[in-house]
């Protein structure tokens, strides 16, 4: 295979990996703060994308400034997703704190269904895919058979920056410390002066903001969004987060790239088997969990008797 195509594939894989990693990171955050899996996460991504689309369309109808539209779209996405995330966190997840984890999983899944259906019913012709305007500069870098849009590069870099920033925020700051404390023992955390509710809701807001950014990136990159895109992305994000290891934030990032890598690899090597790429990816997941029971970056044993 010629080197240009190889580079192209590498780029595609990286891009996919960044998107997966961002979603996985969100899952990992919620897990980190409350030990719960919030399955509506994928649909919050969708919500972010649609909110951005709405804002962009509105701005576009008033002034023709793509830059402004982009910024406002991003802000709208973040605002909408954060609001949704905090409502879900505050009214559904927190009250179920003492119920079994599957109950939380189910209730958030249903919340996701409501979001999804609300988008489908609320947006005109919401069942159809919607085009996402190309707001970034539309030039291409062409080196031999390697061709990539400047906008793609921008998106990739922005994604990487967000991932790194989030990682830094959680591992290096006081907020991160509070989040982890709350996850391990809410009472001890309170008694150390941490505002439990605020920390939890703050984490939900943060995770949802990540989702919103991911939603906008998806829109900008694929130039198309639809109401059910969160479903598949949610499952993949969850898989990436768990297989990477829920105990550390590097886990989901690694998981995201791994998942993207396997999918891309299968498609390149055996095109006619590209339908098997999910089969392959999930088989790899099962095997990996068999080998590393608590994820690739395994949790340090902290329990003793």
């Amino acid at each position, binding site marked *: 295979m010629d080197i240009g195509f190889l580079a192209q594939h590498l780029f595609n894989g990286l891009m996919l990996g960044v998107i997966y990693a961002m979603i996985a990171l969100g899952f990992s955050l919620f897990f980190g703060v409350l030990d719960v899996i919030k399955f509506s996460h994928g649909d919050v991504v969708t919500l972010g994308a649609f909110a951005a689309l709405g804002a962009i369309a509105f701005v576009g109808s008033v002034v023709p400034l793509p830059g402004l539209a982009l910024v406002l779209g991003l802000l709208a996405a973040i605002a909408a997703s954060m609001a949704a995330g905090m409502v879900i966190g505050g009214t559904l997840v927190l009250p179920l704190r003492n119920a079994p984890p599957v109950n939380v999983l189910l209730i958030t899944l249903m919340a996701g269904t409501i979001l999804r259906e609300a988008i489908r019913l609320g947006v005109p012709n919401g*069942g159809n895919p919607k*085009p996402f305007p190309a707001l970034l500069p539309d030039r291409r870098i062409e080196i031999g058979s390697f061709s990539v849009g400047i906008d793609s590069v921008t998106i990739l870099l922005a994604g990487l920056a967000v991932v790194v920033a989030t990682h830094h925020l959680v591992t290096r700051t006081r907020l991160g410390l509070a989040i982890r404390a709350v996850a391990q023992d809410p009472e001890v955390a309170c008694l150390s002066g941490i505002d439990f509710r605020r920390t939890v809701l703050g984490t939900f807001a943060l995770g949802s903001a990540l989702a919103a950014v991911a939603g906008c990136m998806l829109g900008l990159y694929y130039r198309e969004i639809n109401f059910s895109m969160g479903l598949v992305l949610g499952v993949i994000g969850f898989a990436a987060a768990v297989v990477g290891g829920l105990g550390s934030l590097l886990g989901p990032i690694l998981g995201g790239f791994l998942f993207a890598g396997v999918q891309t690899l299968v498609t390149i090597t055996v095109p006619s088997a*590209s339908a098997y790429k999910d089969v392959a990816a999930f088989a790899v997941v099962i095997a990996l969990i068999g080998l590393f029971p608590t994820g690739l970056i395994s949790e340090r044993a902290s329990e003793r008797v």
Partner: protein
Amino acid sequence: EAKDTVKIAFIGPLTGGNAAAGVGGRNSSMLAVQLRNADPKAKFAYELVPFDDECKPNIGVQVATKAAADRAIVAGVTHYCSAVGIATVDTYARFKLPVVVWGAILPDITYGNDYKQIHRVNGTMINEGKLAAQFLTARGFKTFAVVHDTTDYGKGQNKYFSEYLKPAGGEIVATFPVSPDQQDFTAELTRIKELKPDMIFVGGLTPLGVRVRSQMERLGVDARMAGVSGIMTAGFLEGAGAAAEGTISFHNGAPLSKYADGQAFADAYARAGFREDPDAYGPFAYSAANLIMDAVEKVGPDRAKITAELNATKGRPSLIGEINFDDHRQNIVTANVYVAQGGKWVFWPDSEYAAGKRTIAGR
């Protein structure tokens, strides 16, 4: 004087990913019923009872049973999704409920059995695949990459297209079966870019078509795209936006404007105030409902008699043109070629492409 009420079932996907088509079909058949009820000459009052099959076979069987077990329902306008359509044929046969399929295009639904109850007004994917192969090769496109989804629908489209492509002199350089809800096609498209086919043939529904088209654009894939009726929706045009331009599609219906009553239908649909488009298969749902109501008017609300009457349908005028059922109660239709031009699906012979004013260039 009060007329007796006759119930007709409508079954299609009203929620989930294919809801747009399902709701369009329901609205269209609803329109048929409304128009008939407004007609003073009608002997009966009709009521359409819509059911949601969610595009899931097991739910489909459930609602089919429900409809069929309801003695007040005399016939049904059924199914958009092929997987559901094929799963429910036994149920209708067992309960002797005559149905007219309005959207599912899997050949087996009519040709895979000999149930007298199953009719279909729309064509099958055989028509579309054959026309696609012949038309495209005739235009000088010789090498193809196929992307199809792994449902019955996509697999069938792939099967018939490749089957007819060989004798027509075309060649398939690669086939990519993909999951219908796959989001990312950059890997496939990069491979395709490498292989440099003349054209990408998509066997799938609107969401798949939109994604492939948009991402071709993003990756700068230098090929054209053709699809089947599954992408011939307003949704595709909207979703793919400017990138849709020049996409070719094959559909076993003709454009509304080519039908004698097409404009009337469009006007009535607009007047009825439905929120959603009729979608590509709306006219078929409309015609199926009318076909059934005609039969009821003629032989009365009796399932057996309606079945016999429907079986004998020959040369019956309708919105979608003359309906002729063959020995498997399959309407004989001819497929047509369309092209996306200026944000509309345009009948090929009327298009600027056919006239040579535009060319189906990739980019």
